[in-house]
């Protein structure tokens, strides 16, 4: 039985894992870098050990240090969270060697799924659909035409040696096939001195839909339905929801079965995610498997009613899955947004700094997985995600409304965040109507900026607020009682009126 878990991570996911540990009566061990002594995961854990300087490569990524703390603290198991060492096959192996339970799959599963080519081959072997295309380079025009006709239009022709868009041709019409193949090949030859090309099915309006799976060590596996993750910026997910507005019960069942088959194909153990690319007609293709807990796992927890971290721990403990596929169902609708310390008005530049004031949304249907607190200074060494806001409601429309309420009640000052941007996403017609692909942000960029058309009265009142605060700040040095009496700031200000020549 696992009695003590070392969490080889930081930030919200470390705390997320510790929360389940606490509920299960399991002790948690934090590790931290020199930049993280005052991070919440250190304060939240039962034990905490320093493992090195701020850069991850010298602390959170050093397997030796983590194993050393595990032994020193007597931890039975290591949970890697996501990111950092979560998909590191060496950690999985080293744990096995040291007799520590790795809460995740074997190195075989990590390696097989971590390599695009072996993953694709493995999926083909068990008949999970992959994006149609050639796996061997093509050097003959006749072959290319034959392959394209097999795959069906549209296709993308890509230079074997290519990159940066050079030697790429999108073909939509049959009459363009030969000219496009030739053009791609001659461009490839000119750029890379190699005219071999690959051909791949082109998906016009792609949706990113993934399936959560859980497999125990006794040959049982289930899926916990899908997550729609098409709202992406620079291939980073920004908003996720479940159920997917695109999905039908039939396709869901079929994709779910394929997801479980995909996991079974590598003797998977624990929680994992099968990512699919899906077109508007619900044709779907295996993209990759994430052999770890995902950032967006909470929306599945909300809708299916399962604590995924608790299940990971039970599986690692050698227990059998507590439910069969037919015991699981989706209830209501959940949405997650990722809140980043970044400036949406300034090309989403990361914006670390100190949180001055923090007020978190509460009330019905809101779950908030975060790690910041007022007074905390976000270190610049790590990921700028500061929290995940998750809402649940009976249906999608109400969930969107609830998310709007949550975002407008989430107030913090000191740093800029993506909250204003996320509010705009919740209002964008394409999102509200559930009609969006991975092109959503690009397509809607001009309506995703915060409002600037405000009335004269609104402008005046905002100016007055800033002015009153400025006057308050000016007089700060002169006040002595303020510290213990924050509410009297303003009263004090009044009393000092004369002094300040107002």
């Amino acid at each position, binding site marked *: 039985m696992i009695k003590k878990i070392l969490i080889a991570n930081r930030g919200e996911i470390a705390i997320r894992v510790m929360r389940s540990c606490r509920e299960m009566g399991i002790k948690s061990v934090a590790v931290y870098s020199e930049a993280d002594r005052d991070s919440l995961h250190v304060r939240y854990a039962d034990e905490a050990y320093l493992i090195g300087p701020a850069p991850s490569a010298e602390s959170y990524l050093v397997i030796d240090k983590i194993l050393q703390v595990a032994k020193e603290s007597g931890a039975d198991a290591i949970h890697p969270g996501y990111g950092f060492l979560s998909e590191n096959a060496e950690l999985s192996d080293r744990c096995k060697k040291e007799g520590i339970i790795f809460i995740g799959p074997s190195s075989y599963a990590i390696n097989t799924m971590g390599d695009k080519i072996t993953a694709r081959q493995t999926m083909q072997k068990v008949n999970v659909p992959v994006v149609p295309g050639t796996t061997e380079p093509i050097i003959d025009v006749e072959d290319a035409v034959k392959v394209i006709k097999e795959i069906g239009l549209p296709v993308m022709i890509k230079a074997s040696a290519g990159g940066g868009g050079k030697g790429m041709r999108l073909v939509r019409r049959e009459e363009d096939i030969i000219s496009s193949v030739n053009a791609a090949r001659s461009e490839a030859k000119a750029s890379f001195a190699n005219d071999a090309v690959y051909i791949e099915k082109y998906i016009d309006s792609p949706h990113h839909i993934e399936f959560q799976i859980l497999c125990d060590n006794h040959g049982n596996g289930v899926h916990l339905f899908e997550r729609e993750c098409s709202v992406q910026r620079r291939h980073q997910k920004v908003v996720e929801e479940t159920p997917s507005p695109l999905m039908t019960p039939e396709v869901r069942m079929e994709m779910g079965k394929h997801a479980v088959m995909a996991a079974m194909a590598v003797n998977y153990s624990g929680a994992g995610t099968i990512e699919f690319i899906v077109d508007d007609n619900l044709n779907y293709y295996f993209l990759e498997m994430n052999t770890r807990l995902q950032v967006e796992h909470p929306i599945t927890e909300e809708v299916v009613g399962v604590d995924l971290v608790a299940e990971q721990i039970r599986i690692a403990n050698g227990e059998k899955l507590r439910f069969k596929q037919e015991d699981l169902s989706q209830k209501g609708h959940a949405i997650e947004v990722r809140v980043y310390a970044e400036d949406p008005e300034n090309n989403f530049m990361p914006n670390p700094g100190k949180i001055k004031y923090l007020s978190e949304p509460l009330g019905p249907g809101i779950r908030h997985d975060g790690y910041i607190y007022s007074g905390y200074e976000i270190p610049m060494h790590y990921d700028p995600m500061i929290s995940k806001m998750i809402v649940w409601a009976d249906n999608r429309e109400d969930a969107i409304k609830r998310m709007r309420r949550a975002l407008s009640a989430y107030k913090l000052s000191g740093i800029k965040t993506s909250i204003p941007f996320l509010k705009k996403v919740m209002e964008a017609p394409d999102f509200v109507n559930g009609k969006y692909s991975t092109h959503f942000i690009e397509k809607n960029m001009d309506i995703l900026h915060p409002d600037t058309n405000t009335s004269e009265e609104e402008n*005046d009142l905002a100016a007055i607020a800033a002015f009153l605060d400025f006057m308050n700040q000016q007089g700060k040095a002169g006040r002595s009682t303020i510290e213990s009496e924050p509410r009297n700031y303003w009263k004090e200000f009044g009393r000092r009126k004369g002094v300040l020549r107002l």
Partner: protein
Amino acid sequence: MFEISINDNEYKIEIVKREGNKVTVSIGDRLYDLDVIEPKPGVYSFLYKGKSLEYNFFSKEKDKNQYEVVSGDKYWEVEIIDAQRRYRKNRAGDDDDGGNFISTPMPGQVVKLLVKPGDEVTAGTTVIIISAMKMESEYKVLADRVIKEVLVSEGDNIDGDQPLITFE
């Protein structure tokens, strides 16, 4: 007497009267009677003609006169112009065209320095690479420049808005 700039308009602004949390402020030629409290430092709650409004700020550490004001879904940039600020503004035209050094808008770490004092670089050349929160950004010169000073070293932690490299 102060002036305030909001959405590119400048107005005179003054606290006309104050009794308890009732405040009268004039801005431009308009007068506002408000009920104001500051429930937490830096958070202002206004009651104005029945409406309940709340304001938060993102003020820059480096510049106490500049505010980014947020209320509900709305957002403003505000600058308070006091005597000192006006003096500096008037001087600015003489010796500072805003382009004689490179700085970053946020704190970070110097990853790579690509120039040394005396180097002549052409417009668009990357001179420094800064990393902040797993993202590296390249900073380029906007015009042909001669490097005067390099004020930081590789590996240094830097603040936002801090001069890093100056030009002749």
